[in-house]
């Protein structure tokens, strides 16, 4: 993609890469809420521009999103979605629903698909639907699921997640599921690494955690 942006440069000239979130991201619903998880590597080619990035991004007090793809694109999308969601919530006089934020994000992703490289996950808790997880892949489309994974690292853990996910997990079981899955992906995907950030959202509120090298369930 960045090679397209620099078409016409001589083949031995240095061509900078756009910062990308190589990434492993995921979100899963448990009994009473959701957990979002992500690695923390932002790469620009083979250079790790940020080894402690925060890919789990605030949209509202009880809705967060995971970002994968172009760092710039996903930050812009999250910013605009945050604004529209908050405006809508003020107009309605209601707490924003996860469904609303996800649909707004999908409109941005789909209508601007020619100019974006962004694969995102929206998850959170609202009083109407409880905990919800929505996947909005590259190019748009919105898919409500019990759990979803994304980013370049996700390909390595589909088998693990399919085998180990179960319905109505407790918060602790779900946290273990997310951490182990992200850790496995980080150990195999060169574009994922660093720390594992998790965000737990339920009716009580939001809890952010980070686990670093020696606490990772799986290490390279």
């Amino acid at each position, binding site marked *: 993609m960045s090679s397209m942006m620099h078409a016409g440069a001589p083949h031995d000239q240095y061509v900078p890469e756009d910062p990308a979130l190589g990434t492993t991201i995921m979100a899963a619903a448990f009994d009473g809420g959701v957990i979002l998880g992500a690695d923390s590597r932002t790469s620009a080619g083979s250079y790790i521009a940020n080894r402690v990035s925060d890919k789990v991004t605030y949209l509202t007090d009880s809705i967060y999103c995971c970002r994968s793809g172009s760092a710039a694109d996903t930050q812009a999308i999250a910013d605009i979605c945050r604004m529209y969601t908050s405006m809508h919530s003020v*107009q*309605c006089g*209601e707490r924003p*629903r996860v*469904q*609303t934020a996800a*649909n*707004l994000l999908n409109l941005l992703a789909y209508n601007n698909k020619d100019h974006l490289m962004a694969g995102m996950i929206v998850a959170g808790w609202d009083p*109407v639907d409880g905990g919800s997880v929505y996947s909005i892949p590259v190019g748009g489309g*919105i898919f409500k699921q019990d759990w979803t994974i994304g980013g370049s690292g996700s390909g390595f853990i589909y088998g693990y997640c399919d085998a180990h996910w179960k319905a109505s997990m407790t918060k602790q079981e779900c946290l273990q599921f997310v951490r182990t899955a992200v850790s496995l992906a980080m150990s195999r995907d060169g574009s994922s690494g660093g720390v594992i950030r998790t965000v737990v959202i339920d009716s009580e509120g939001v809890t952010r955690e980070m686990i670093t090298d020696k606490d990772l369930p799986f290490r390279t």
Partner: protein
Amino acid sequence: MSSIGTGYDLSCTSYSPDGRIFQVEYAGKAVENSGTVVGLVCTDGVVMAVEKLVLSKLLVKGTNRRIFTVADHAGIAVAGVAADGRALANQAAGEASDYKSTYGSSIPGQYLADRLGGYMHAFTTYGSVRPFGNALLISVMDETKGPQLWVADPSGTANSYRGFAVGKGKQHAKVMLEKLVAQNLTCEAAVLELAKIIHTVHDETSKPFELEMSWVGTPSGGKHVRVPADILGPADDAAREAVAEDSSDEDDEGEEAD
């Protein structure tokens, strides 16, 4: 309280010395002279009824509709200028459709009422247009809040009510509605009660009328639809008889009292 506002009533852009916008009030007159429209929030939905005055014997029965479905879960009953009302119903349908496309869920009652009210209000702020000569009763099965009845008037204000009436017979209808609100009726029961209200307030000396009714709630699976003919017909007949009995009772009392 009616007065003319000579000199201050030529357009919406003028206030009268006592702070009134006469054009908006005159638009309200179009509503007051219209056939009665009533709505009632029930335990399991919302029912609306219209006294549709039939202006010509040549009209096909059921035509000249005054109640419109604007979304799966919402409908609008119109009092006042028919053509204006139709335009507003189309506007409402557009709002509901846009909302769903943008936000992914059904339009909330408050949001729809505020948008319609805002739209109507816009026409009261320019001298080059006229206000809508309508009051709208908006019945909604809100996804999170349940059955709601919103009312928008020509000034553009929209409020939520448990029951409301506009049009010729509104005073009497409101008195009857206040009693019904306390009874927490279901939609099925309300169909008969609203039919009775319309038959009661209808002025026998004016043109004949057709009863048009809609409901949204449990009996219709959460969708705004016309009350089915096999329920509306008997309710219409029963209401007509009940009102005829009441008035013949009154006649008897009159004879005895000499």
